[in-house]
C-alpha cells in the first residue's frame, strides 16, 4: 500500500519535473552543479563532526547508562528474590513454632487432665475407704448396741419386776428367782421382739 503510494509519488514527481523543466530555464536546482562542491564540503564537515562526537562521546555514555541500569535492575531483582526467600524461610519457622507450641499446649493440657483425674481418683479412694471404715464402725456399734440390748432389757425387766412385786406384795423377793423367770420368758418370746 505504502509502496504503491511511493510509486505514484515518483511518477507524479517526474511529471512535475518535466513541468519545471518546461517552465524554468534553470530546470531542477538539484542538477545545477554550482554548489555541489560546497554541499559536499559542508556535508563531510558536519556529518564527520557529528559522527566523531556521537561515536566518541555520546553513544558510549548512552550504552553505559543502559548497561548500568540493566545490571542495577538485575541486582535489585536478585536482592528482592533473596529477601523473598528469607521471608519464606522465616514464615516456615514461624509456622513450625506455632505448630510446636500447639502440640506442647495440647500435651500440657492432657497431662494436667490426667493428673487431675488421678488426684480425683486417689482422693475418692481415700474418701471411700474412710466412708467404709466409718460405716463399718457404725455397724459395729450398732451390733454392739444390739448385742447389749437384751441384757439391759432383761435387767430393766428384773428390776422393774422386783420393784413391782415389792409394791404389790410388800415383801422382798429374791432377785435371782426373778431373773430366772425373765430369762425364761425372754428366751421364749425373744423372737417376737427381735425379728432377726
Amino acid at each position: 500500500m505504502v509502496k504503491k503510494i511511493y510509486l505514484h509519488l515518483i511518477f507524479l514527481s517526474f511529471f512535475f519535473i518535466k513541468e519545471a523543466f518546461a517552465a524554468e530555464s534553470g530546470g531542477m536546482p538539484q542538477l545545477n552543479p554550482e554548489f555541489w562542491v560546497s554541499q559536499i564540503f559542508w556535508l563531510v564537515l558536519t556529518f564527520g563532526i557529528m559522527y566523531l562526537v556521537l561515536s566518541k562521546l555520546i553513544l558510549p555514555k548512552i550504552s553505559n547508562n543502559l548497561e548500568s541500569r540493566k545490571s542495577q535492575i538485575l541486582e535489585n531483582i536478585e536482592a528482592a528474590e533473596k529477601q523473598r526467600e528469607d521471608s519464606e524461610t522465616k514464615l516456615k519457622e514461624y509456622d513450625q513454632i506455632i505448630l510446636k507450641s500447639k502440640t506442647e499446649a495440647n500435651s500440657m493440657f492432657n497431662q494436667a487432665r490426667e493428673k487431675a483425674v488421678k488426684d480425683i481418683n486417689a482422693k475418692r479412694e481415700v474418701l471411700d475407704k474412710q466412708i467404709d471404715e466409718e460405716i463399718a464402725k457404725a455397724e459395729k456399734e450398732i451390733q454392739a448396741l444390739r448385742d447389749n440390748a437384751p441384757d439391759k432389757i432383761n435387767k430393766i425387766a428384773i428390776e422393774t419386776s422386783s420393784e413391782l412385786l415389792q409394791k404389790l406384795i410388800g415383801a422382798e423377793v429374791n432377785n435371782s428367782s426373778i431373773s430366772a423367770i425373765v430369762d425364761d420368758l425372754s428366751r421364749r418370746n425373744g423372737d417376737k421382739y427381735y425379728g432377726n
Partner: protein
Amino acid sequence: MAANPMSQFDVYRIGPEIKVGAFDISFTNASLFMIISTVSILLIFNLGSKKNSILPNKIQLLAELSYTFVAKMISDTAGSKAKPYFAFIFSLFMFVLFCNMFGMIPYTFTVTSHIIVTFVLAAFIFIGVTVIGFIKHGFGYLKLFVPSGVPAVLLPLIVVIEIISYLSRPISLSVRLFANMMAGHTMMKVFGGFVISLGIVGGWLPLSFSVALTGLEILVAFLQAYVFAILTCIYLNDALNLHH
C-alpha cells in the same frame, strides 16, 4: 517565485563567497540546515545521555529508545559482527531523519532533497562496504556475484546481472531518498499553490489534500531514513557474512 514548485530546492549563498583553489565552498542554506540538523542531534543526545537515572526522563528515554531501535535494527539485519559500525549507522539514520524532518517545517530547506548529498552518502557507504568486504574475505568477496545453485549455462548471464545490480546500489540508494523527498515537497508546494489560485471558494479541497499530504510526508520522512539505514545494514551484512 512561489508559483514555481521547484524554487524551494534552490541553493543560495549566505554570506560571502568562500573559495579554496578552484572550489567554491561558500556557506549556503544547505550548509545552514546541515548544521542545524547535526547540532540538534548532538544537543538532544547529549542531554539524553547526561544523567543516568533509573527512571529516565523524557529526553533520556528518547535517546535510549533511539539507541535501542538502531541497535536492534543492526543486529536483526547484519548480526553481531556489525557492532563496530553501529555509530556510523546511528549517525547516518539520525542525520537523514533530522534533515528530512526539518524539511517538513514550512520555509525550510531539505538537505536530503539534493541528489548530490544523498549520492555522496550512498557512494561513501558503497565504497566502505566494498572495502570491508575485500578486507574480510579477500578475493573471496567476488563470490558474492556467483549465487549458489545456478546452472553453469546461466552463470555468465547471472554474474553480469549481479555485478550490475551491485554497482547500481549507490544509485538506487541515493535516488530513492532524493526522489522521495523532492516528490513529496513538490507535491505539497503544488497543492499549496492550488489553494491560493482556487481561492476561498475552491481552495478547500487542495487544502485538505495538503493537510493529508503533510501527514504522509512526515511518515515518508521517517520511513526513508529507516530504509536508508536498513539498506546500509543489508549491504554491510553482505560484506560481513558472505552467504553465497
